[in-house]
């Protein structure tokens, strides 16, 4: 499986330092803390204010999972309504989504359903999604209870976490869980269809294509 995917997920010749590459996307309303969340994970830093993201941005982080180096290319998106068309174009390439709302902002929570629909519309069926309620450190300002978050996640069939980028709560857990789900799904589909392995081995194309999962894991 690994060898089959090696060539598939290589970004370019110079950057072969990983076994898999997963492309993840963080989406959600504007100023729910997507950029902070990503900086906390990738750089372990926190600033109370990042410049509002224009278009899309990304960070890279390599993690180990079962002796395999997994390179995560995490795309951070602008949450403003106006950027929907631009960002949704990138959905199709993503293998995993972190759908984020702000526990101190009702509106961002109410928009979750919408975002979910967007994922369904613009991504491949098998993209994995984790629902994340951010800013859980601000208990005083909380307007969305954990239970409501959980309930919604169940209803949408998503995994759920409450996090705080500021206090570094659950940030790593979210990414680890998402990687796990993707890996599971990937090996599942490889098991069910052994021909995939051989056919994938043929692919020598460098990744960075908009459909990595289309080409590869089918998870």
């Amino acid at each position: 499986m690994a060898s089959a995917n090696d060539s598939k997920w290589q970004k370019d010749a110079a950057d072969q330092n990983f076994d898999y590459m997963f492309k993840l996307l963080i989406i959600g309303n504007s100023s729910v803390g997507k950029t902070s969340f990503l900086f906390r994970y990738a750089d372990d830093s926190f600033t109370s204010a990042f410049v509002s993201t224009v278009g899309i941005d990304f960070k890279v982080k390599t993690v180990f999972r079962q002796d395999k180096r997994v390179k995560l290319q995490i795309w951070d998106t602008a949450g403003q309504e106006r950027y929907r068309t631009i960002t949704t174009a990138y959905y199709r390439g993503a293998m995993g989504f972190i759908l984020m709302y702000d526990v101190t902002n009702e509106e961002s929570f109410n928009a979750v359903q919408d975002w979910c629909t967007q994922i369904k519309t613009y991504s491949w069926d098998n993209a994995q999604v984790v629902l994340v309620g951010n800013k859980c450190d601000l208990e005083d300002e909380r307007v969305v209870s954990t239970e409501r978050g959980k309930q919604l996640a169940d209803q949408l069939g998503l995994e759920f976490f409450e996090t705080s980028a500021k206090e570094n709560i659950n940030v790593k857990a979210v990414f680890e869980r998402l990687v796990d789900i993707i890996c599971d799904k990937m090996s599942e589909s490889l098991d069910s269809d052994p021909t995939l392995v051989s056919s994938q081995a043929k692919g020598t194309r460098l990744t960075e294509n908009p459909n990595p999962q289309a080409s590869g894991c089918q998870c």
Partner: protein
Amino acid sequence: MAADDDGDVFEITDFTTASEWERFISRVEEILHEWKLISCLCKGPAIKGAYANGVWEEKTEELSFADFKFSLIHIWLKAKDEKREKSAEKESGDDEENDDREVTPTVYGDLMDMENDFPSRAHCLCRWYGLQDFVILTPANNSDAVLGESKIKLLLSSVNIALTDAGCCVPMFVQAHQKWRRLYQGTCVLPSANIEFGMVQLKRTPPQYNHLAGLLDVFKAKMGSVADPRPPVSVAVRFLYELCDWVNSPWSQPLPDFDDEVGCKGFDQLPFGACEDPVCSLSLYCTWPCLSEDMIVENHVYSDLDPLQAPHWSVRIQMTEDPLCLLGEYLSTFLALCHRKETLEQLLSGFGTEMREDSTGDISNALQRLTEPTVGYNLHVPTLTSYVSQPQKPTRKSKDAPIQGELLDQILQFLFPDSVKPSDNSSTETEENTSTVQQPSHPVKELPKQLKSAPVNGLLHKLAVCLCVLNQNNGGFMAVVQIWQEFILEMRYRWEHNYLIEGIEPGPPNLGSCLLQQKLQMLNCCIEHKRKRETLHKGYTGVPESPPSSPYRGPSTSQLSRSLSHNEAENVDQSDALNPIAENDQASGSQSESVAENSNQTNDSKTKKGPGSQKIGSSGESSDEEFFECNDSDGDQLGEKDEDTSERNQTEESMLEGAEDTENQSGDENEAEIDENQSETEMECEPVNISQTGSLAGSMTGSEIQEMVGTDARHSISNTSVLSDSAYKDSFSHKPEGRLALFQDLKLINCDERMYIPVTQEPAPMTEDMLEEHAEVLAKLGTSAEGAELRARMQSACLLSDMESFKAANPGCVLEDFVRWYSPRDWIEETIQDENGVKTEGHLSQRMQIPGNMWVEVWQTARPVPARKQKRLFDDTKEAEKVLHFLSSLNLSDIVVHLMPMLIHAALLKAMDNDDPSINVLKQVIEQACLKASQVTRSPQQDAKRYEELIRIIMQAEIIIARNLSLRSKFTTDLLEREDAQQELEHFVVTILQNSEVPVRGGPMGPAGSVISKLFQSAQRASYMILDEEESDERMDDDEESRLNSSVPNFPRPLAREYILRTFVPRPAPYSKQLPQRMFCSIEEDDFRIAGAFTSDSVFQ
């Protein structure tokens, strides 16, 4: 061998002096030891059906006798532990001689076991002797043969010695004569007995042994026993009847009728089904499993063995191998084009002369025209429009082009139905046909979402199917190349003349569809964008790019609305929304023309059909007239449209514009008069329309009005004349420009103006390859802060454009205003209570206040420029050229691969149309095909090899479907006597399709059995009509004697008869032990075989 000096040498010498024969025997023994066949492990008889369905294992060793090479093959049925236990139980219960003996050797049980007579699939020795474990000695070389009795005897005795020495209880056979004769002699050495396996094989059946009675004589004579009373011989019989003539249902796959010109049947459909009957013949096995010799009589004059009386029936269907299946054939042939490496130019040069008669020179001219369109080339579509009206027009193609004249016209009509102007009855019919085709003709089958193709019945679907069919039927790859060339030319024509491409999903490229589809969507976006642009700038450029005569016009506003980003309102139908308002607003002069025009725009197909049905018989008119007529009809539909008012209004509007274009002033009163200037008139109408709706938009505060309509909203607000508005002003005055609508009820912070949503530019649509490129560029910048900064800057164009638009629409605004509209969460409002009471105060969020951040920076550089005067975010010209270049740079193999997704999609739909849910195998195959299809089409690397695999799966489905159809037509319910048995028959058909040999439930009495009898009966009747008297007489001599009275026997002569005779008899002497004896006999047309296994006591002889 020369001995040197050592003492050891003598021992070796002793060994080597052994003869070849001895060495051979010891080798056999050695192998038996190796295989661990020496211990007499006893297995019970196999469970029922195990021979056919169980797993057989095989081991081979090479050995030689002198220089003659043999292989020793051990074949045995792999027994599952569970099975063994079960059968062991059975053995202890059943076997009578079990008491006499401690263990029954496997071979005894096998010989006498009744459960596994006539296995449907097994080694011949297994079938003849019922053995589950045996060894064969056979010449290693296929052409070698052991000939001559003495040689066979020699081998047999060698084997005997080896078996005895090794103490092996497994029977061993020596293959004699040529292999195809399957002649074996064998032996088995048991502790107190041995078995002799003998065989006779003849080409012709001796008449005295052609029946059970004769065979019983042989069997008894062979036993030579005089034991009294002799136990009866048990007999198992199986007759095989074959049915080849399916009288009731001859195979009738309708071949696609390529000559049918009406409705373009030739090239709009993929064919489906098998060309030949996929079901070849039916074999009926009638079995009498266990009879006593006393119970049954079969001799040369009489037979009890009537198939209709047989207790057990089973059926096997012989399928035609690789029947020619149309769909698979078409697909593979098309895909095979992938192997052509020539470029399109090379292939096209094969035409020799040019494709189009109206252009000069060879085809390279046509290619040149791709880059510099000429007037001559522009003639193309007008010609196209007159195809139907002038069918007798001489062909425009050179003689070398594979598709000429009428057929080409039809194809183009089929692909681009909108470019044809129907002019008479017959063509109207065609038009209707095509439009019905356009509607999804089958219930939308949910193909997996992942299948990257194009909408069913869209242009690309049609193109793919059409090219595939043409490739097969109309000139191979040259036809494909030719039509592709036409296709490219048409695309370019449409781009240059602002015709939208029909049959392409509207909106920005759908990344869920295939690349080709995305490219065409992109091209459509470009065309739409260009039209919009040119309409707006018409007054300024002074060169109206009048949309040429066409039965349709205008980008549908509903289509545009889909690309609107900030307008959350899913704008319903533009005309619906406007109509009532237009009526209310008398001052702005609603006119039916413009409203009708709007509705006209929203529904292309309606407009297209409208004129089609009205214009019967008037062939020479330009389509503009249709346009107006259509307006009338549409206006009527909308109702409440006062013709006078509308005309007056139009006049007024036109007069306003008159300064610009005087020609129009007189031209608008009467439709009949406008003939000449129609295109201009039409053009003029548009700004008028927009200004009106714009004013409407102005009067509807904060309502959700589309960008398109509101483009010129400023007209009504500034209350200026249409003329001054449409004139292009180059000013950055503080006069608000490019307002779309009021934004809620917000007011600007620094002045008392209300805030307006500006008209904004849409971000450029992207196809997946562009997106990929773009993402790669962004990713290359790395993850450093500088990289991120640069990335943001690269993407700031859209932000800048929006800010500029906002500034233009809201003079005096500040960043805070912009943020309130654009990113409301960055505007923080706080309620402050002071001595004056409660008031709300707002400020920018912390992140917007970061000094020097992107937003502030861009805001500072932004000038108040309305969207339409800004630098284009979307360069339609460049993008369109890119698409067109992409299309024309594809070579044949690329074209094929790019069209494959649509073709596969169409093929899958075809297969699903013919799906039969009751057949599991088929369901599996189709599911597999769908899964595979989604993988293959989604793969970024479109690989012809993977498509080949996919096509193979689809072919498999096609064959199964064809077989199913064939079987169903053969086993029709018409033949049933009782209605309620229908289900049973269906079940039978389904099982027979999925299994090799199927027992007939209820035998001849069951519903399936009765149908089979009838099939045989009718086949018999049919054959007897042509048979002469003599032959039928001969037939009746046989076992069909009982049918003497009826004119025709129900069943033909059995093709093969098999008998198994078994008994326990003391051999060789009357005082010997009772031992199992068995004789198998098979009688076929030209093969007569008796295989006997006779056991004799080796102690009491």
